[in-house]
């Protein structure tokens, strides 16, 4: 069965510093991996995805994520955090073997202090 874990409930970072939001996954086949961001009282917005190819994926708003197959991780990163990046971030995984179910992590709340 597929699963995804976001080990940090909350991440605090100062504006201008790099940020990392962690995600690990478990699937039986090759993974499709996604990151979403949610602002208060809004739906989830798609940031980026990894299907195949380069391990470093670039997405919206300057975010990127690194796929690490040996560590089964897909951490979200940004070189310089903005206060406006403060939000709830979700990692999601889907097994490339098929099926309709995308499993979402519990979410990590990011606080960026000015």
């Amino acid at each position, binding site marked *: 069965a597929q699963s995804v874990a976001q080990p940090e409930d909350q991440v605090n970072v100062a504006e201008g510093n790099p940020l990392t939001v962690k995600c690990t996954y478990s699937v039986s086949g090759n993974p499709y991996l996604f990151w979403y961001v949610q602002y208060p009282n809004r739906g*989830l*917005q798609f940031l980026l995805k990894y299907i195949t190819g380069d391990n470093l994926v670039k997405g919206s708003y300057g975010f990127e994520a690194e796929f690490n197959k040996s560590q089964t991780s897909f951490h979200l990163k940004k070189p310089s955090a903005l206060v406006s990046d403060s939000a709830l971030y979700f990692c*999601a995984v889907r097994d*490339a073997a098929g099926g309709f*179910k995308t499993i979402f992590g519990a979410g990590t709340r990011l606080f960026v202090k000015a």
Partner: protein
Amino acid sequence: SQTIHQWPATLVQPVGSPLSLECTVEGTSNPNLYWYRQAAGRGLQLLFYSVGIGQISSEVPQNLSASRPQDRQFILSSKKLLLSDSGFYLCAWSVTPRDTIYFGEGSWLTVV
């Protein structure tokens, strides 16, 4: 481009009353459609998904039902709401089951 609309945005309903949340997708045909519930501002629970008109799969047995009367329309319903039905409901779509899922803006349901 494709857009997804979900309404109403906010709903306060008494216990025992019916529910209807509606979602439509524009700019694509035969999308895969999903209803999720988000409790306590955190994890997402898949409630229903649909691959075509009249084809609904339920992930979690509960007080809710879903219908897809038209290709790009997905409705979440209940005949009698429970307090535990309160939450943030999100409609979503994808081109195929393997594609990125895109979400609507959500509907806040408070059952009182």
